């Protein structure tokens, strides 16, 4: 919402400085977006006189003008206007000026070989009119002594731009803003001068509001003004319109716009001669069409509120008028409309048709239904003043009465909500200043709400009115209480924060990527999950919610590889989505690593990353989170985006149904499809929702400390087993033989090849045997050795390697 301070002062009697007014606006909740000198750019436009005009040597239509701009020397300007001749007073724009019409910045330039220092402007270029044929011609008697002065006079006017919240339609008019300022003590709201305009005869075009379900119009006021001479607006009006960055069109249109900006009372002017007999406000029928003032043809649906005549739709009520009945410069008779449209209806229609107009913006937020006649009066008065004409009596059709809503307000509510006290009398004064009718009983006020405040419906709204006018700075700052109702984090949240830092501590950079992704990449990782499409994606390559963290991680990994990084470790912890049902999402850690270990290292041999690098990271993360490595169970099943032979899944317990983690090489087909060039690409995922609560908690007492100081013995074995026999099974078999004696089992070699049959491999293990009761004798050890060999051989079909 833009307005000038001068305009504001037409409604507000104030001695406050501009800066104080600006501060007050902010204080009462009207956020000041900017407060700037009105188009200081416009200071570059000077009244100038053409001293001499010569033919351009290289162009028939161009002239070279010597222009007096009030300085010692004249400037040379190349000009193509046919009316650029000696002694003409016109408007000169110097280099650096920005032409209002097209926002082009002028520079000193050569035109057909002659240097032009600036430009002489047409009215069209200055947004004064549509006249673009020649340069502006200023009247000699008015401007002869103004050469060199600024052409735009209101240079001292400053324009305020407010960001008005949707609850305050009343402040979409200058008067509403003035009212708030007056209530806050920044001046006195002036009365609206109520000149008694002369009204003659009745409004002869019949208007009716059809009784229909979902009728979007409840009040339709109109008057005829006959015998007008439409013309350019007078300067004061033009300047008002220009000051708000709009373009003056004609007096009639400018006046309706002016009243709208002044009182937030949208109006519409029809060329009365173009209306076919009568006006019917009714619901549209599906398929009806009309051409709107934005020169687009709209196809209407059912139940949109239209203003129509015998020939069809004239306009969409409260949204946009039509070209058929629009006023033109030669319009003689006009019908002025001032109506009330229901916000819901306006919103629905404009959404479906995707139309955004100033009127729609206002009606959607709620126009004062009691401003119908005020709007008609003010506009009719101005029109007859500027364009002449006879004003008819007002015709007001209405299907609904708008009386002031009432509300009871307990005075004590104010302090209860805000924590500070305001004197009862002061409360009453604030409310009266804001337009409330107040009658008080003891502890309660009976309020009638002004009709321009559709946002106020209950006592809490009254609290807000008082506190914002009184000033938020009166609210005390109370020291926060430190009592806790609950633990800060629940178990899942603790786990989240722990795992996040645990993974990062293994050299991974944490990344935060979109929850959505490219469906083409997502498809590579989505497995059997449902694709979740976004109806209105920000771009076609972010069109689905991610089913896997890897979709984005691989994408960004590639980007970093393209930046020249080779050994990259990235992870993200966040949601993946199973369906579009709220809550049907999982929290997952996805981690990915590319390149080599110990690349270009002086003392360690470099090698490509492999599955055991990420297996380590996954397992260690789980162990750090408090899970017992000894109970973990690894299966060689994993999602299809992993290498089928070099990946696996981790179960916290062998009997668990769901794995908590996957790890492995990323499937080579995917690496190829994504065009990722690296020596090794491995990753792991941890599913937080599958992690059960730890059985043993940190706060629990630890079991008794037991240890053995008896001598340890180490024995090495090598077993020949089937190639696909799993090391995990061998360890399980051995450790279950005698848990009291067998303290640890380590695999120290895997061998395939010479001396080993095809389809077989040798697993070499080291077993530590120790008793907690005695030093084992050779015979005891021999016994356990034999037991290990025989058990392994029976249970696994392995053979001890001799």
């Amino acid at each position, binding site marked *: 919402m833009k307005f000038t301070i001068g305009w504001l002062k037409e409604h507000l009697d104030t001695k406050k400085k501009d800066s104080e007014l600006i501060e007050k606006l902010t204080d009462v909740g009207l956020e000041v977006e900017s407060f700037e000198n009105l188009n200081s750019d416009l200071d570059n436009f000077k009244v100038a006189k053409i001293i001499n005009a010569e033919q351009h040597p290289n162009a028939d239509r161009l002239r070279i003008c010597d222009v007096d701009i009030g300085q010692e020397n004249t400037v040379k300007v190349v000009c193509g206007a046919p009316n650029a001749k000696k002694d003409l007073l016109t408007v000169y724009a110097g280099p650096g000026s920005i032409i209002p019409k097209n926002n082009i910045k002028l520079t000193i330039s050569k035109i057909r070989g002659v240097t032009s220092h600036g430009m002489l402007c047409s009215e069209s270029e200055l947004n004064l009119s549509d006249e673009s044929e020649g340069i502006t011609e200023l009247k000699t008697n008015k401007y002869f002594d103004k050469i060199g002065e600024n052409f735009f006079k209101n240079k001292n006017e400053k324009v305020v731009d407010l960001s008005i919240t949707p609850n305050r339609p009343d402040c979409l008019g200058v008067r509403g803003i003035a009212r708030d300022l007056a209530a806050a003590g920044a001046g006195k709201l002036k009365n609206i001068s109520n000149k008694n305009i002369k009204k003659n005869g009745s409004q002869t075009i019949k208007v009716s509001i059809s009784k229909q379900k979902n009728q979007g119009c409840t009040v339709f006021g109109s008057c005829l003004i006959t015998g007008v001479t439409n013309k350019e607006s007078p300067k004061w009006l033009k300047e008002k319109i220009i000051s708000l960055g709009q373009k003056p069109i004609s007096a009639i249109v400018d006046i309706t716009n002016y009243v709208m900006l002044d009182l937030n009372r949208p109006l519409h002017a029809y060329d009365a001669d173009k209306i076919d007999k009568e006006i019917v406000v009714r619901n549209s029928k599906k398929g009806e069409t009309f051409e709107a003032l934005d020169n687009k043809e709209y196809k209407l649906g059912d139940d949109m509120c239209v203003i129509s005549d015998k020939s069809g739709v004239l306009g969409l009520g409260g949204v946009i008028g039509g070209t058929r009945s629009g006023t033109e410069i030669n319009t003689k008779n006009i019908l002025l409309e001032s109506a009330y449209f229901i916000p819901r209806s306006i919103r629905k229609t404009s959404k479906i048709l995707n139309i955004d107009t100033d009127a729609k913006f206002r009606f959607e937020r709620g126009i004062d239904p009691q401003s119908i006649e005020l709007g008609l009066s003010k506009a009719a008065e101005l029109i007859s003043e500027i364009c002449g004409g006879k004003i008819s009596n007002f015709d007001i059709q209405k299907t609904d009465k708008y009386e002031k809503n009432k509300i009871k307000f307990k005075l004590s509510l104010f302090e209860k909500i805000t924590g500070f006290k305001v004197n009862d009398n002061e409360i009453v004064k604030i409310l009266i200043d804001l337009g409330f009718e107040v009658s008080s009983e003891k502890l309660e006020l009976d309020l009638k709400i002004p009709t321009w405040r559709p946002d106020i419906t209950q006592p809490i709204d009254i609290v807000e009115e008082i506190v914002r006018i009184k000033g938020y700075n009166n*609210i005390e700052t109370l020291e926060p209480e430190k009592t806790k109702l609950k633990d800060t984090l629940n178990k899942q949240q603790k786990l989240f924060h722990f795992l996040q830092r*645990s993974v990062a501590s293994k050299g991974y950079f944490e990344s935060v990527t979109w929850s959505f992704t490219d469906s083409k990449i997502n498809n590579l990782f989505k497995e059997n999950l449902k694709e979740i499409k976004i109806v209105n994606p920000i771009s076609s390559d972010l069109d689905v919610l991610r089913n896997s963290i890897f979709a984005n991680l691989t994408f960004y990994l590639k980007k970093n590889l393209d930046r020249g990084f080779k050994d990259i470790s990235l992870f993200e912890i966040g949601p993946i989505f199973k369906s579009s049902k709220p809550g049907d999402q999982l929290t997952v850690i996805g981690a990915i690593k590319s390149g080599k270990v110990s690349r270009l290292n002086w003392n360690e041999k470099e090698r490509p990353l492999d599955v055991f690098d990420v297996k380590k990271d996954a397992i260690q993360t789980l162990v750090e989170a408090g899970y017992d490595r000894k109970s973990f169970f690894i299966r060689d099943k994993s999602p299809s985006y992993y290498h089928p032979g070099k990946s696996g899944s981790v179960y916290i317990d062998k009997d668990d149904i769901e794995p908590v983690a996957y790890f492995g090489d990323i499937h080579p087909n995917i690496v190829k499809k994504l065009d990722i060039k690296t020596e090794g690409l491995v990753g792991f995922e941890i599913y937080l929702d599958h992690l059960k609560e730890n059985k043993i908690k940190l706060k629990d007492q630890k079991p008794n400390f037991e240890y053995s100081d008896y001598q340890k013995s180490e024995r090495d074995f090598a077993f020949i087993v089937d190639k696909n026999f799993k090391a995990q099974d061998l360890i399980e078999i051995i450790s279950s033989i005698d848990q009291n004696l067998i303290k640890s089992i380590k695999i120290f070699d895997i061998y395939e090849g010479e001396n080993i049959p095809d389809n077989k491999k040798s697993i070499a293990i080291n077993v530590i045997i120790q008793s907690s009761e005695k030093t084992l004798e050779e015979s005891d050890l021999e016994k356990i050795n034999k037991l290990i060999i025989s058990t392994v051989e029976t249970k696994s079909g392995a053979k001890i390697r001799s």
Partner: protein
Amino acid sequence: MSDIKKIKDVYLNKLDSDLNIENLNQIKTELFGKNGQISNSFKSLGSLPTDDRKKFASELNSIKDELQDKINFKLQEIETKEINSKLENEKVDVTLPEREINQGKIHPVSQVIDEISSIFSEIGFSVEEGPDIENEHYNFTALNTPDNHPARDMHDTFYLDDNKELLLRTHTSPVQIRTMLNGKPPFKIIAPGRTYRSDSDQTHSPMFHQVEGLHIDKDTNMGHLKGCLNYFIKSFFEVDKIKMRFRPSHFPFTEPSAEVDIGYELKDGKIVIGEGDKWLEILGCGMVHPNVLKNVKVNPDKYQGYAFGIGIDRLGMLKYGINDLRAFFETDYRWLNHFGFDPLDVPSNYRGLSR
């Protein structure tokens, strides 16, 4: 008698000279070997008369001890010397690089969330979360933003179905609704998380982070709101004094509503939060609207309180001097390395938020 003293003097003398391990073993044999001089002297004890024997034995023992000590001392000396001379040849160039360190990084958003949680934990808030996908009821209607409310236009919403029933939450406020529906007052929670709006430019990103705050109790008023936010902002920016301004504003789910500005100044092109004379808008808040309380079956005549919503990414940008919001989500390795945090830097009450 004089014999053994002589032996002693001779050998002590010998042991003082520069010896290697072989020389030392040779001396040991000469003294204590089978036919060593001291061994022999002990053997000769038997042939002495009883009186002399005692005296001689005592002297012999003390000489033996003295020599043995000397030998042990010498042995250690030689060993140390040998190790030292060996070490001379074992010298490596310790300026060569250490084995690879893989330092990981925590994303600034995560760090800031931890900082926020730590601060609010101190004043009794607990953390709640909600789903990223919401239905239109929780995201809008229950928050007093009915379908025909123009405020809905301010949220450029991502929808997941044509009926506009399912959407990506445009703010963390639906967590308020879920929390209150699932519990009984009082409530004192914060809810950090991802939020989404279909908007993308230098200062907007289609996904960003918010933290919601909600405190509902019997007489929680605007003074408590001010106090809470004042405490938070001061703690977060780790400054003693902060200029803060509450401005009336409008949100459908709070009444009265406010926007909060904090003071800052520009120093070398960077924003410094504190007592500067410029204002920066950082959050929206207000007293929870009675309609919202009714929607979650909390009696607004008995309970009242405040709610606020803060942009997490923006807080991080301000505190850590990050200029571009979109860079947060672009996973540029260089950016993560530059702005990321060491995983061991866990913000906490007792250690402080930052080093």
